[in-house]
């Protein structure tokens, strides 16, 4: 087929360009799987301790919503597959999305694909090459996870099903990202579209897994299929075939669409704009809004839905207690059902705060990518000063994440008030709980401003700050890390939910001061450093 001429060469080019990026993604996932299985082996050495753990998981809606139900307690492999199944597939889906977009739509947007396309290269070759590399990377990541589990002494069949389910989950999103790259005109929009689908897929199965009686809903989501592979708990190979088929179909659709459109064209077209700017488009504030309003409004909508869904899910905790007298007994022993609901909301607020901090980081890095794209230079050549430009950016970096967290807290509180009948004002408590997360969110934003100002070439390290915080806060306690290490994450120092004891003011003040100092240091450095 001449449309595929040069695919092999482009596969090599793709691997050459990603030789650092892909091993990092895969290595991080495999290392986390290895750490998780070894931690479980230490914590739950025998079947009895695993059964007790399983019972506590079954009772906690937040665990089911985030990780899915624990299908078996017969082995540590099963525990690891539960803990890392959905999360691992999400990690591989992110890797696949960024990989596909980077090598297809981004190449087209920058004009490099035009250069490649003018050579003896088939029309579909660049897309197919990117898909091949994505599939190979996913399978490699999945099988390395399998090997890790086998080395840890787990059952080989279960380990292979686990690895292939992860790989399949990632590969499906490679196919979906390839389709998105045909629909949109920019790499940013293609990423946004695919990540939106990924978020929806996660939410759909979270609702299915977290709500009693809605188990089948998870079949609507590819991430639910990863769970349904039932690694170490029945090992359903047929579901893996479903993931393979979905990858093949989406990939084929992408290749078909790619063959039908022009270079640089897209199915969702941009219309011509106005010949003159409206009166309001007059300065850096208006420019920031025009550039980022889509992202800001989209994230706000997502946080409103996320808050409402997780708030409503709290209702399932109450029903669980009513149906099981034994469970009610256990709960009274640990401090009453209120503790369970609090634990659930604390988990939700933690994830909400981390995601909002992610928005702040991406907003800051957007200014950096504008700078390298020579879009900052013409603005700074006008009477807009550097400090003013940076001050405007404080809106998406600090203010918007705060609003996002409060929005999610508010909708979660309202939904909880509607579904829980315990007479507690969940709206007030969740709003307060959301508010105390803000200093930690701002510390991440401050760190982003700092790296932007001081080491602009390494500005992407801001993601590292966020990833480390997330890892320490969400996974650290399970790995039994010492408190001193956990305290590196600002999210460890903020209370998760306001109890009657009142607000510990000092950590909040200290964190806010740290955030302010980091941002100020970044601003001072930006004022004097070279642009470009």
């Amino acid at each position, binding site marked *: 087929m001449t449309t595929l001429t040069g695919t092999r060469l482009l596969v090599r080019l793709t691997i050459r360009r990603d030789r650092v990026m892909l091993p990092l993604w895969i290595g991080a996932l495999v290392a986390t799987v290895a750490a998780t299985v070894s931690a479980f082996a230490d914590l739950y050495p025998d079947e009895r301790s695993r059964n007790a753990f399983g019972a506590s998981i079954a009772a906690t809606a937040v665990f089911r919503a985030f990780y899915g139900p624990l299908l078996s307690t017969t082995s540590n492999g099963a525990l690891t597959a539960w803990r890392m199944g959905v999360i691992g597939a999400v990690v591989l889906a992110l890797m696949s999305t960024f990989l596909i977009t980077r090598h297809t739509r981004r190449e087209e947007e920058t004009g490099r694909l035009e250069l490649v396309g003018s050579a003896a290269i088939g029309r579909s070759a660049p897309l197919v090459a990117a898909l091949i590399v994505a599939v190979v990377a996913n399978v490699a990541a999945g099988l390395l996870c399998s090997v890790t589990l086998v080395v840890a002494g787990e059952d080989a069949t279960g380990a292979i099903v686990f690895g292939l389910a992860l790989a399949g989950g990632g590969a499906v999103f490679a196919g979906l990202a390839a389709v998105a790259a045909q629909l949109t005109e920019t790499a940013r929009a293609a990423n946004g579209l695919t990540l939106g689908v990924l978020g929806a897929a996660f939410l759909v199965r979270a609702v299915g897994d977290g709500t009693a009686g809605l188990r089948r809903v998870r079949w609507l989501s590819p991430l639910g299929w990863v769970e349904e592979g039932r690694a170490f708990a029945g090992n359903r190979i047929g579901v893996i075939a479903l993931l393979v088929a979905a990858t093949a179909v989406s990939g084929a659709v992408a290749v078909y669409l790619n063959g039908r459109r022009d270079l640089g064209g897209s199915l969702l077209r941009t219309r011509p*704009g106005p010949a003159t700017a409206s009166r309001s488009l007059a300065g850096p504030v*208006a420019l920031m809004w025009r550039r980022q309003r889509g992202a800001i409004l989209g994230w706000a909508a997502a946080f409103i839905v996320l808050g409402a869904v997780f708030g409503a899910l709290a209702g399932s905790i109450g029903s669980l207690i009513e149906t099981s007298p034994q469970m009610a007994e256990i709960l009274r022993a640990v401090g009453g059902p209120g503790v369970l609901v609090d634990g659930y909301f604390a988990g939700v607020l933690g994830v909400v705060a981390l995601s909002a901090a992610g928005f702040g980081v991406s907003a800051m890095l957007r200014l950096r990518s504008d700078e390298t794209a020579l879009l900052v230079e013409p603005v700074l050549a006008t*009477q807009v000063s550097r400090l003013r430009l940076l001050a405007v950016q404080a809106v998406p970096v600090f203010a918007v994440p705060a609003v996002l967290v409060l929005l999610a807290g508010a909708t979660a509180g309202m939904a909880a008030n509607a579904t829980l009948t315990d007479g507690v004002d969940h709206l007030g408590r969740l709003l307060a709980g959301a508010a105390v997360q803000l200093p930690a969110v701002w510390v991440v934003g401050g760190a982003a401003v700092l790296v932007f100002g001081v080491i602009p070439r390494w500005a992407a390290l801001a993601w590292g700050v966020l990833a480390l915080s997330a890892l320490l806060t969400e996974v650290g306690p399970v790995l039994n890390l010492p408190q001193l290490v956990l305290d590196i994450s600002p999210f460890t120092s903020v209370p998760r939910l306001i109890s009657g004891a009142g607000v510990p003011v000092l950590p909040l003040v200290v964190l806010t001061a740290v955030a302010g100092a980091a941002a100020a240091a970044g601003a001072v450095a930006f004022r004097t450093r070279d642009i470009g």
Partner: protein
Amino acid sequence: MTAIEVDGLVKTFGSTRALDGLQLSVLPGEVHGFLGPNGAGKSTTLRVLLGLLRADAGRAQVLGLDPRHDSVALHRRLAYVPGDVNLWPNLSGGEVIDLLGRMRGRIDPRRRADLIDRFDLDPTKKGRSYSKGNRQKVALVAALAADVDLLLLDEPTSGLDPLMEGVFRTVISEERTRGRTVLLSSHILSEVEALCDRVSIVRAGRTVESGTLAELRHLTRTSVQAELSTPMTGLEGLPGVHDLVVDGPRVRCQVDTEQLDELLRVLGTAGIRSLVCAPPTLEQLFLRHYDTTAVGSR
């Protein structure tokens, strides 16, 4: 009082010495050509003049202001067209022109409309749909329609077709008549010759020549290749003839532009079968006048 005064400017990027003691002096109201091959340090100089880069050593003053400390006050009085123009993908060309104009201070709506018309620009297209030349036009219209004293133009014609280059030359002559100061960086000698009152020539971060075009006349020799009906001798003695090579009926030489007429008259006496006259390229100039090895290896 000079519009731009630069003295001993040094800027290094890692081990690369982009500017190496650069001198530049631009008088108010003149169109000053800033001429040099690619990588000579022209764009770096302009970025230092805008305060976007910090010089490692040397002094730069623009309109009597320090570009680092008084950048906002300075930027209110100048407009800049970058060498690589990139536009915001979701803004139309017209919106970019207005936005940049407002951020600079004022924009003259009548001049804006006139320039859009003359440059034959469609202002309704979105940033990413423009070709390189059209992005260049957007930046040019935005800069030229601004009510400012100084224009900093970094290779502004690099993406324009010959027709638009013509429009650009006319517009710059008008700017001179209005009394604006223009610093025009270029690597095209003929463009600078056509537009500029004075020229500074840079190479490898250093100013190698500076003066009026008349003062630099020795740089603008014409290269002549002729094939004659009969071989002739005695050409060495003619004034202004350099690098003469005679090969039977074929003659090659360089001649000072003001002596061209005399040379052609003498050649005509031997009967001219074919004749090629060409202005020297910038690279040839550099090869001839300055450090040959350094430029040749570039």
